[in-house]
């Protein structure tokens, strides 16, 4: 059994999606508990990928490929897991999206991938999201963190609007807000009343962890 778990780990570390799923299927076929596969193979492997990234050995594509392999394996395993054994512990709930008028998604998607790799439960609202939807989703998902992305100098004003709307609806104190996007600055984040700003995805995950700790 150890051998098959090691093979799964190795396939995920190298970001080979099809092979990861095949090996997971084979392990399940051989009678290995799905929850065990997640706990003993997939989660530690993804953790190792994150470490390699932190140490500068791995780059964003390595992370993305490993995260996709993880996602595919989880998709296969999840229906097989009994409710009481459900998934690994979550670090927190994040609702995230790109503001109205802005169709850029790459920065946000990198952040989502890194957050998932760090164990967060992430709800992606997509791009061109109206302020009201951000606020509704924060309520509905009982989010710990709201991430608001905007890439253009013309759309960053929407971030301010969303924070104002949160305040208006009485939800501002129940969620931590982090803003991101190339044209932003710490000064801007403070000005619009966000809790944090991050210049890139790595800083973003660190800030989110810090915000969760402070909650």
């Amino acid at each position, binding site marked *: 059994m150890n051998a098959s778990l090691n093979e799964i780990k190795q396939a995920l570390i190298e970001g080979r999606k099809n092979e990861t799923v095949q090996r997971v299927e084979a392990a399940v076929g051989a009678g290995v508990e799905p929850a065990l596969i997640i706990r003993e193979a997939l989660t530690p492997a993804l953790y190792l990928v994150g470490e390699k990234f932190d140490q500068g050995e791995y780059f*964003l594509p390595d992370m993305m490929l490993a995260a996709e392999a993880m996602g595919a394996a989880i998709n296969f395993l999840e229906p097989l897991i009994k409710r009481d054994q459900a998934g690994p512990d979550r670090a927190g709930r994040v609702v995230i999206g790109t503001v109205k008028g802005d169709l850029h998604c790459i920065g946000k998607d990198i952040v989502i991938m890194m957050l998932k790799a760090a164990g967060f439960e992430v709800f992606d609202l997509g791009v061109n999201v109206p302020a009201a939807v951000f606020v509704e989703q924060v309520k509905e998902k009982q989010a710990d963190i709201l991430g608001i992305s905007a890439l253009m*100098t*013309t759309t960053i004003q929407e971030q301010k609007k969303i924070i104002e709307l949160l305040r208006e609806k009485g939800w501002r104190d129940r969620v931590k807000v982090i803003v991101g996007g190339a044209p932003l600055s710490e000064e801007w984040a403070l000005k619009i009343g966000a809790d944090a700003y991050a*210049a890139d995805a790595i800083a973003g995950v660190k800030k989110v962890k810090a915000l969760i700790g402070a909650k």
Partner: protein
Amino acid sequence: MIFEPLSKKDLEAVHTATLDILSTTGVVLEGERARKALLDAGCRVDKGRLLLPAGLVEDALRDPVSITIYGVDSSIEMPLTEAVRSYSHNFGSVSVLLEPGGQNIREATAKDLEEFIRISDFLPHLDMVVPSLRPTDFPEEVATLAMTICAFINTRKPVDIGTASDSWEVKCLVEAASVVRGGLDRLKQKPMGTISISPLSPLNFPADITEAIVDCAALGLPITMLPCPTRGLTAPLTLIGGLVQQNAEQLAFLTLAKVINRGTPLLYTCRLAAANMRTGFVGGNDPDLGLSGACAAQIARYYGLPSGVYGLDTGAVLPDIQSGYERAINCLPPVLARATFISGMGLLNGGLLASAEQLVIDDEIYAMLTHRRDGLTVNRETIGLETISAVMEGDNFLAKEHTRDYLRRGELYMGKLGNGAAYEEWLSQGSPDIRQSVKKRLEAILAEHPGPYLDEKMNRELNLLLEKAARSRTGTA
């Protein structure tokens, strides 16, 4: 002499791959008017994407329209298609600036923008003025229009009319430019610049963008096609893959504009850059930028189109050593490839910071890089055969007319900023740092250079237009 990094075979491969992408993978393209025009012209839909047949694209590429732009002062003429040299311009729309002389940054104000434009108007090697700053004290809904108006008022040079993100912005920008020119017809005859429109990468034209393209093309005003793909994030990581995808974005744009109006003048402007694969940040400290621009200029020339590329770019946050070497590395290839427009004057940190000091330094860097852009003229007279012989007979070079005449004709480049003196002399001048010299020059430019240029009446008219636009935008929001 023109630097051509791609072979003829390479160019043909780029073209073939581009047609392949457009006809088999297709583009995401929204907007009723644009879709209808392209479907009527023979495009079809597959998996929701629009496929552009090779024949249609090649037909659109035939007979490109020649472009000449003019200054706000229409006696300044700048031929683009027939250009025999590159033109330089500022980088645009930055909200944060570096304060001169230090390391502090702050949000840009309307007054800063006005100063940047006045400095740009003065600098002799800056050819077209792009509003560098997006001041945070402008009402956000009409910031683009306010920036353009500020440029119209404070320079005589050609001006980038603005980057339009929808039809409404096209309408506002065209109205303002028409006021300055004295009517739409005159604007069409003598445009003071182009309107830029930027699709998304990869291969994505949202409805607002196609609406803007359709309106601009219908007017027949020159358009800067401005895709900004990022290698590794929104385009292939390989430089050639990025260039081909960017070319596909250009040709899809061009096909749409030509289907709307065969007579649309188009500029092939490229912003292909690479992301840092650790952070996703597009930092600007990338030695491929220059080569990428040189290749894009060559591809544009292959289609008979004028080009615009990056050149004076850097990842540095200060006008420092890093900024100097990265600018030189990235600006020389497009200068040698004779790209029509070279961007980046005054830019720092991959385009996230603007600096007036850097703007002044860039004027010098660009002057030095382009000093020999026409190559050497080789003949008896330039070689100075008679002069050499006469000196050997007892004359000296300093006393020869050959020396004086060629000096007057600009044979030697004489720097205005950097040190060229011996150590002792430099010490006796108070060991000046380049940034100190630049600061003095900045102050002198702002003190001596006149402006604004437009008369009171036109200023008033433009400001009324701005107020009207602000009201109509807030009304529709």
